[in-house]
């Protein structure tokens, strides 16, 4: 059974490396955020796998939980930052030519 877990772990790692391709070469910044989110979720599984192989799951599981929470917060924060950042660039463009405007103001996101 240990062999099987090691195989699963290595396969996960290889697939995460393949996802890293999108993170490095992704055409836009938001593609990179998407790739990092996926890698983060799978890291949680990998941490617990390492814990089971090590025989100390009850310690590793707290780390995994904290990692899952942090990953979620990081994704939300990064995409929010990207959103704000792109809005600043967009208002400059819109002053030049009046493209059909996106609904820029959203309820509940100010402040």
């Amino acid at each position, binding site marked *: 059974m240990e062999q099987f877990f090691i195989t699963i772990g290595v396969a996960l790692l290889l697939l995460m490396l393949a996802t890293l391709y999108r993170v490095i070469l992704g055409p836009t910044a938001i593609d990179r955020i998407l790739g990092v989110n996926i890698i983060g979720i799978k890291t949680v599984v990998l941490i617990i796998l390492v814990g089971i192989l090590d025989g100390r799951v*009850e310690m590793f599981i*707290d780390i995994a*939980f904290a990692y899952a929470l942090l990953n979620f917060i990081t994704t939300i924060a990064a995409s929010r930052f990207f959103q704000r950042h792109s809005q600043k660039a967009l208002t400059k463009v819109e002053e030049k030519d009046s493209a059909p405007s996106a*609904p820029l103001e*959203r309820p509940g996101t100010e402040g």
Partner: protein
Amino acid sequence: MSVIITFCVMFALWIVMSGKFDLFHLGMGVLSTGLVTWLSHDLLFSGRPRKLGKLLAEIGRFLRYMLWLFWQIVLANIHIASLALSPRSNETLDPRIIKFKTVLKTDFAQFVFANSITLTPGTTTIRIQDGFFYVHAITVQSAGDLAGGEGPGEMERWVAWVFEGGKR
């Protein structure tokens, strides 16, 4: 009512996360749970029914909805996996953004509906604005399932049945 339920949920979470049952840890748990409850007692159940019986009935309906939703999630994964792994997927892909008005009134129902849309085959919610849903659909068929016919689609009827007493 909401204070008691929030306290119980948070205290159960504390016990699971700490895993110790001596007096010191339970006392610390009561203290910190009380603090969190005082800060956020109107957050978890805002706009939910005040009566316990109604709330329990709603939770029961929600669990039945979860069963149906889980089956939809499995279907969604098979769908997206076959799209990704089929050699000529770029011909079956036909992405589009659709927009439709929802019949759901409360914020919580709209939140559950948006997350359910994201989890089910071929559709992802982009935003909710003034009761309008902006949804990205990856094929024509999945767009038609959600907003093709007259009136609300199947999933919207489910959510309305769970939270707002509509007909399924």
